[in-house]
């Protein structure tokens, strides 16, 4: 049985317990043996992206230590957090230091959830059933930093009963951007409202994203607009079986 370590991400940890449970169920159904390092907190991206590189190092070290106890791959439900570990950790530490070596090792075995399913396990059909009209928001770091253009759609296409509807400006940022939401709330609002407008116009009853951050933003926006459209993390959709179709 192949092993993997669960990377919760701090937003997942604080707000999306059920998504993390569903991630666990799906991976176990696929035969993975999971471990969960409880020392993990946040990847440090909020500090890093706001210019606090020096202050990021201690946070990254906590992450690296937590996940270095096992050499199993690390799987997380966020392209953005995974990209932080994969693409930015190695640059936080000086070449030649033990920390750098650990960071490079951790980076090489950290994967985003859909990436791991489609590209490593070579699985697109996880036995999900969801007879609804579904549209998809491509999250920025998932799409551009991780280069994941087709993985989420491949998984959605394999869901029984699902009708896929393209979203206008699918690849335009929803206005989340981490601390951006509280740094420039009014700009974030305009961007979010544009995204919500396009989702409402799509005719779908469900919108899916692979990013907890975008999900918080878009779901909150839909709720505020009084819309009944469901906003879901792709993991929650993929966990739906015949017996619990909403």
């Amino acid at each position, binding site marked *: 049985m192949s092993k993997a370590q669960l990377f919760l991400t701090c937003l997942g940890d604080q707000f999306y317990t059920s998504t993390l449970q569903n991630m666990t169920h799906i991976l176990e159904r696929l035969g993975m043996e999971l471990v969960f390092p409880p020392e993990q*907190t*946040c990847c440090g991206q909020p500090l890093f992206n706001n210019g606090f590189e020096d202050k990021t190092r*201690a946070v990254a070290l906590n992450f690296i230590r937590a996940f270095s106890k096992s050499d199993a791959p690390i799987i997380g439900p966020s392209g953005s957090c995974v990209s932080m570990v994969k693409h930015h950790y190695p640059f936080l530490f000086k070449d030649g230091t033990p920390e750098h070596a650990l960071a490079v090792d951790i980076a090489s075995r950290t994967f985003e959830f859909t990436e791991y399913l489609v590209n490593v396990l070579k699985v697109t059909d996880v036995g999900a059933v969801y007879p609804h009209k579904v549209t998809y928001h491509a999250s920025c*770091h998932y799409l551009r930093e991780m280069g994941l253009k087709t993985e989420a759609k491949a998984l959605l296409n394999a869901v029984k009963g699902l009708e896929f509807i393209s979203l206008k400006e699918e690849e335009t*940022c929803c206005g989340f951007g981490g601390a951006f939401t509280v740094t420039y709330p009014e700009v974030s609002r305009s961007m979010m409202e544009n995204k919500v407008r396009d989702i409402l116009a799509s005719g779908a009853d469900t919108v899916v994203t692979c990013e907890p951050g975008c999900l918080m933003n878009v779901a909150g926006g839909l*709720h505020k607009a009084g819309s009944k459209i469901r906003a879901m993390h792709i993991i929650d959709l993929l966990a739906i079986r015949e017996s619990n179709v909403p």
Partner: protein
Amino acid sequence: MSETPTYIGFEEYSEHVPASIPSAVQQATSRFVGGRAARVAELPQWEELRQIGSDIRLHTIENMDVYLTRLEEKVKLAGGHVHWAETAEDARRIVLQIAKAHNVKMAVKSKSMATEEIGLNHFLEAAGIAALETDLGEYIIQLAGTGPSHIIVPAVHLKKEEIAALFSEKLNIHAPADPLELARIAREILREKFLQAEMGISGGNFLVAETGTLVMVTNEGNGRMCTTLPDLHVALVGIDKVIPDWESLTVFLKLLARSATGQKLSTYTQFITGPRHAEGEFGPKEFHLVLLDNGRSNVLKDPVGREVFKCIRCGACSNVCPVYKNVGGFAYGSFISGPIGAILSPQMLGTPAARELPYASTLCGACADVCPVRIPIPTILRHLRRRVAEGDEFSKPSIPLPLRGTAALASVALAWNWIYRLGARILPAINPFFRRDGWLSGLPYPLSRWTKVRPLPAFSAHFRQWWNVHSAEQRENSR
């Protein structure tokens, strides 16, 4: 009389964006985005071309002294005059001296970001010399008394109705809200001015060091009038515009119009090598090239930040930027707006004056995807955020102290995982006080800045407890 802003308040502006601006900007930019995509799709070697363009620009940046020396030599050889302007003030003084020496009363101008940068128009006006913009967009904003809000479409924030109202008011006529008619009115007025003006002022898209040639890429024909009708032509160009040779130029001409307006080539591409050499030839009697530094040499010392000078001013980054499209160009408080402005202004004006700009982005990366010379805009934004937050060899930190304190606390709480875990257990306790329909609203500062826009999901941190039970069950089952 510098027009250099002392502090750019992006946030303050973003709270009061006139409602007409985003809709005008989005309408125009989506046309450009579509046009660009269509032209790019026709060129299978587009990505290679971008890389070559990037390589040439980097090479030039790293060897700028060599190419600038060659350029100066060749311009002089062609009979032109070359002036070095270290500061904006030097540049203004040089242009004024040339104008005064020729008894100039009126200058006609073609579109130039460098003259916007140094605030040339107001300076000349104050010295008694009329400086008239002849690019339609620039003419409009000159009438309106504002700066440009887009690199290539200076009046992009105005709708045709607003332009008609402006023409009616300023020109004392009845102007209809019809683009063709508005262009006709401007053309009629400008024709006369072209014939009267004693001096033409232009910028330049490229300076070819190989032959000392000024290259201008335009669409309206006014650039050609400005540089051929008056007997005196002064070109004000940033030193970053130099390129090695004509072979490199072919690369940039392929990249520029496609990225900017979705054209294969702009309507006019002018090559100006010195003044006219004989009577009967086109061109002015005298050609002056003013090379503007104005802080560029300083920026060139930063190996990360200087990639901003790869820019060929196409505006494609603004056209795809969701932040730009919702706030418009004035929010960036300087002559260059959009993502490229967000990485240029903090370097040219210093991070204390422009510290808000590197944060005016979600780091979505759409800009880097379309940049024809592959400027790593998100990387430079992060680099400048670091300069603001922690300081570096170029500047001390300029972030407000409370934010530094918050970051220090966050760093401790996230690095000492028992603090984080304790916090995660406490946070759900606030749910009952703010919950409505399953969402949290009206949270205290700083989360109030989130909930003023949309509610927050309720805190639900019980995966860790669930996992303990679940993993025990798993172990039980596999036994």
